[in-house]
């Protein structure tokens, strides 16, 4: 019996070694096995990066003392085009600076609160073992500095955030970020790493209402966000600022959700995550379309890029993507691979008016508008693209509408009575009776004031110059004048 036992044990180990699923059921020991002894060598100053960049791997095989210096700055920044908001930030950005350490490291944390801050702040790092996650030790008045030290005992991707009263407001103003605690062996090498964090924002004005927008406490309590954003601003990762990759490369995203309220259905349109380290933990799931990221949680995901094009990062709770701003682009360059993908759009319905082929003309027009060289042809091209997304559902792509339901825009005697009626109707909508080309219509068109002045000008110009309408041109300035003073009262969302 005694002789038999070791043989049995050896066999069991052998079997476990062959089957990865069994290996996965062996735990890493968590914090109890996360202390690798005292820090070795000279203290290291942590490399902090602004989103969407990620610091390089620590590349260390022994525990070190790592010094992190993070400054809290209250500052006004753009939340959308022509809209500003007073953000409270860790390191001057939303989300705050990315911190990267290795399991077993001793982290000496310095929290500075800028002298011109109005509020005291502190930090709770979910990667800290200890009451409050550092919050009680880092409460810092304006113009002061606090220090505390912790040992990073658990590997994983963790959210940090401010925990000063009123906590919800500090978080809603952008006070969150990510800290990565690498496992001792590091993470598998990839070609690209990016840092993305979702947050919901509550302003007194409506979505895209211009000017400075204060925080709206009532909406925050009701959990009715005005904006749902990646990296703190609409367009933070689109156009020139899109994330970049090349075909044949592997990409790892570190995605957090600061909240304060919403849970994210994180998805990349046109990609499948080869691996998701769900909840930012130790295990990965393979072949995932959409992963859930709770408020105050994070996940890592990895995919290999086969086909060039733009991949759209969205919160697949989809109204947030198209009506509240939760949209970013990863642009992959490289050779087409028609065996894998023929070139048509996969997710046309979701891409809507922001679909790629459309963006070309719109971008050209926007660029030309900036330099003052916008031609009427460019406006018409951009307007056609925008019309296809926003207007054609009802008015039809040929402008004929649906008789008795949606009035025609083609050869319209109503439009002929005044070209300004077009931008005006787009801005303000229309309710009630209207007679067009001899037929009565009585329905509701909602105001499309989420469109920018540029967009409305281009759509109007396109309509005026299409389908035998009499021609004409509407400029951005004219639309801006029409928009006039924005509605003062705060709409529901």
């Amino acid at each position, binding site marked *: 019996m005694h002789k038999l036992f070791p043989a049995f044990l050896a066999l069991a180990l052998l079997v476990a070694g062959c089957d990865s699923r069994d290996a996965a059921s062996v735990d890493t020991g968590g914090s109890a096995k996360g202390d690798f002894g005292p820090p070795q060598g000279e203290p290291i100053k942590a490399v902090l990066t602004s989103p969407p960049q990620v610091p390089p791997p620590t590349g260390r095989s022994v525990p070190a003392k790592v010094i992190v210096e993070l400054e809290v700055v209250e500052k006004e920044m753009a939340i959308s085009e022509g809209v500003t908001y007073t953000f409270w930030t860790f390191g001057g950005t939303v989300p705050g600076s990315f911190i990267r350490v290795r399991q077993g490291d001793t982290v000496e944390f310095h929290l500075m609160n*800028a002298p011109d801050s109005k509020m005291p702040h502190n930090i709770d790092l979910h990667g800290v073992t200890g009451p409050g996650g550092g919050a009680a030790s880092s*409460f810092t008045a304006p113009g002061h500095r606090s220090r505390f030290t912790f040992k990073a005992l658990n590997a994983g991707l963790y959210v940090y955030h401010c925990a*000063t009263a*009123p906590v919800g*407001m500090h978080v809603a103003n952008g006070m969150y970020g990510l800290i990565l605690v690498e496992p001792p062996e590091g993470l598998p090498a990839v070609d690209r790493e990016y840092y993305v964090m979702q947050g919901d924002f509550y302003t007194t004005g409506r979505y895209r209402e211009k000017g400075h927008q204060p925080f709206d406490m009532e909406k925050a*309590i009701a959990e009715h966000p005005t904006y749902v954003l990646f990296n703190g601003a609409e367009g933070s990762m689109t156009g020139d600022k899109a994330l970049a990759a090349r075909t044949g490369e592997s990409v790892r995203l570190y995605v957090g959700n600061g909240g304060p309220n919403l849970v994210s259905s994180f998805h990349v349109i046109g990609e499948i995550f080869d691996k998701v380290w769900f909840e930012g933990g130790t295990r990965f799931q393979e072949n995932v379309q959409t992963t859930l990221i709770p408020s105050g949680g994070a996940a890592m995901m990895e995919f290999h890029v086969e086909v060039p094009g733009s991949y759209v990062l969205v919160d697949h709770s989809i109204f947030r993507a198209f009506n509240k701003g939760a949209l970013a682009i990863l642009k992959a360059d490289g050779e087409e691979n028609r065996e894998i993908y023929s070139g048509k759009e996969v997710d046309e319905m979701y891409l809507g008016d922001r679909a790629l082929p459309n963006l070309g003309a719109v971008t050209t027009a926007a660029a030309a508008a900036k330099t003052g060289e916008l031609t009427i042809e460019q406006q018409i091209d951009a307007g056609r693209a925008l019309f296809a997304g926003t207007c054609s559902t009802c008015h039809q792509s040929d402008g004929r509408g649906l008789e008795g339901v949606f009035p025609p825009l083609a050869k319209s005697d109503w439009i002929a009575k005044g070209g300004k009626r077009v931008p005006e109707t787009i801005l303000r909508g229309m309710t009630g009776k209207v007679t067009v080309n001899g037929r009565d219509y009585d329905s509701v068109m909602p105001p499309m004031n989420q469109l920018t002045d540029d967009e409305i000008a281009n759509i109007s110009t396109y309509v005026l110059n299409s389908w035998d309408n009499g021609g004409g041109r509407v400029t951005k300035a004219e639309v801006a004048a029409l928009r006039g003073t924005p509605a003062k009262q705060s709409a529901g969302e």
Partner: protein
Amino acid sequence: MRDVRRFPPWLLAILPLCGQAAESPDSYVTIPGGVFKSALRYEDTADGVRILPYQMKRAPVTNAEFLVFVRSHPEWNRVRAPSVLAEKRYLSHWSGALEPGSAAPPDQPVTWISWFAARSYCESQGARLPTWLEWEYAAAADPTRQDARGDPAWREQILSWYARPSNTPLPRVGQQPANVYGVQDLHGLVWEWIDDASALLVSSDNREQGAADKLRFCGAAALSTDDRENYAILMRVAMLSSVEPADATGNLGFRCARDVK
């Protein structure tokens, strides 16, 4: 003694007459007492706290007023003030120890003041710092109501100041409409020291509701807040509990109060 100017005694004597106003007798208003529901939870006060009548200074103490005090109390000029009572940035925005200079106009509220210095100033006026309850009671009023705290528009107005960083010069005192008692600038200008600032029992981790480390705090003051929607009050308490009595910041000033004789 580095930058202390030496003035002949006769000059010191007439300076207060040269427009560098000391507090005038009518700079205080009497606030009638009453029963008040504080946003902070006090023990055995389900029906509210009784506030005795008191007097409060109409506006925060200005640079000009504080200059008069510093001249007559040299132990409180920034060179002499001991660092245990006033940190090294005490009055650091003045151009000299007895000279506010252009960065600190006379009518602007004085800031970069420690709690100890604020208290000594009030003593010199035969007054004291207001208690938290006195401050909160007066600050609950708007120009027409004694208690405007339930009005979302009123809260929003207060919050809009809180939500902006202090990176622009401070306005003069007395620019905002007086509240129903005749007191100005309780909101929208500077944070203000209160007498019992260090007894405000707010944990430095404000989520530890009820489990706060009580040993770290003295006094039987507030454990938690009773008015969760009143973010403005929460933020003020958080601010006051983040500073030590010797600390000073660029947006923390004070005003005085006194008992009704």
